[in-house]
């Protein structure tokens, strides 16, 4: 469960990322956040795992307060929150396996992680995560040799290896072609349903938002301007969120 109470994020340069946002996300929900770039979607997601610090208000994940948490507490919270990035953020010069291990580093003592002495259980966890996204056959391939879609699935496996209760995805499909984007979104949906992991996804394609969002949150200028089921989010709603009429670019290309 994620709870935001009157959360404001102001960056050092004065830009306001979130402006008094209050929000509750129940366990197991699949939430899609939409809005123009700069609307605060990314800030919202990064605030949840403390990559962006909250200026005022209260933000809790599973009852743990994120704002004002010490470094140690923050690391503990982050280890329970998986995160997926637009640019995958894999270490390209090492194997897929080691990349997935990155997700478990929180629980591995430094003397073992330094030499890469993974235990059987840790490897098993990594294999299972890779199996869940259907890419286990690439376990020992270098990450640089994978296609974009494959890299994003490894990134999902990395997040899964954390045993997360919450999964955050920041524009996970923005750098992928339409069929691959569909596939990655379906992976996220399946994981959400099978494991009951609370999932928050940032998207800017409104058709994907409608298709996958059991709950859609529309953001504009750091505020929530829509909150409802995906089915209710019709074109008129999106026009209020975007503050302009819709164009072809708002729809995932290649689909009508």
């Amino acid at each position: 469960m994620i709870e935001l109470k009157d959360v404001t994020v102001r960056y050092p340069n004065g830009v306001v990322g979130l402006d008094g946002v209050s929000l509750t996300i129940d366990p197991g929900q699949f939430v899609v956040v939409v809005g123009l770039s700069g609307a605060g979607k990314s800030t919202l997601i990064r605030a949840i795992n403390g990559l962006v610090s909250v200026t005022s208000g209260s933000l809790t994940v599973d009852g743990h307060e994120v704002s004002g948490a010490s470094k140690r507490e923050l690391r503990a919270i982050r280890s329970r929150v998986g995160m997926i990035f637009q640019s995958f953020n894999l270490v390209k010069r090492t194997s897929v396996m080691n990349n997935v291990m990155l997700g478990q580093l929180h629980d591995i003592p430094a003397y073992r992680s330094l030499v890469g002495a993974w235990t059987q259980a840790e490897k098993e966890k990594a294999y299972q995560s890779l199996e869940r996204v259907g890419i286990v056959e690439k376990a020992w391939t270098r990450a640089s040799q994978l296609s974009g879609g494959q890299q994003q699935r490894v990134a999902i496996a990395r997040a899964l290896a954390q045993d997360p209760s919450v999964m955050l995805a920041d524009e996970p499909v923005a750098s992928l072609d339409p069929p691959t984007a569909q596939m990655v979104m379906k992976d996220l949906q399946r994981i959400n349903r099978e494991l009951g992991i609370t999932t928050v996804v940032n998207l800017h394609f409104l058709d994907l938002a409608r298709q996958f969002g059991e709950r859609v949150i529309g953001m504009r200028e750091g505020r929530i301007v829509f909150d409802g089921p995906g089915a209710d989010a019709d074109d008129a709603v999106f026009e209020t969120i975007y503050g302009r009429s819709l164009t072809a670019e708002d729809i995932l290309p290649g689909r009508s």
Partner: protein
Amino acid sequence: MSTVAPAVPEAPARPRKPAPSKGIIAAFVVAAIFTVWAARSIEFTLMPLFTNLDNGWEIIHQFLNPSWGFIFRVWDAWVETIAIAIIASFVGVVLGLVFSFMASTVTNRTRWSYRATKVFLSVVRSLPDVAYVLIFVALVSIGPLAGILALIVFNIGIAAKLTSETIDAVDTGPLEAADASGAGTIARARWAVLPQILPNYLSYCLYIFELNIRASVVIGIAGGGGIGQVINVQFSRFAYENVAAITVAIFVVVFVIDQVSQQLRRRFV
């Protein structure tokens, strides 16, 4: 209506050639003055090249007749030189790696320890290798050990500088991912940074090994063992034909090691 109409509509005024920037002129003047001052203060002259050539000729003649056999008579010194370079490079680059992680804001997020490491490294790099040899000769007496220790310190400076600059330029995506999963500082450096810099780092390691072979002459002359010590002894005995043979051999060794190591470096990057 003017009485004197210009024959041609007035052309826009031609711009004047801009004076060269004052800064550049000043820089060149300063450079020229400094050159003259420096040359005068060390009493620079090329005259001996014409007047003293005869004096030097005797010695140069000896140089041109190297006693090749001497190269192999000091076999032990060669082994010693290579061995010194291997140990010093190995220890130096390993410690240098640790320092380089401490000397980059990417991997070291503690402000004061970053600053302290930077200052320490710049002090280490500002002393020439000879100074270290002299210091360690005083501490552990003349011999290879002093050479090894001096080179280790010297190597830490170079390895840490080159590697920390590479760390500064890594892709920050994986770092963000490591942070987002709650990884600790050491684990983050090992798995999100090290794989990215490894090829460059290995290349620096070989480069440092090359430097160490080259430096062996210096090290030896200052009392750090190896082939340099042989040169020093022969030089002070005016045995120029021996010095010449060793010089040629050093050149060959350095050249061969450079070539091999450059081939390897090309494979890394």
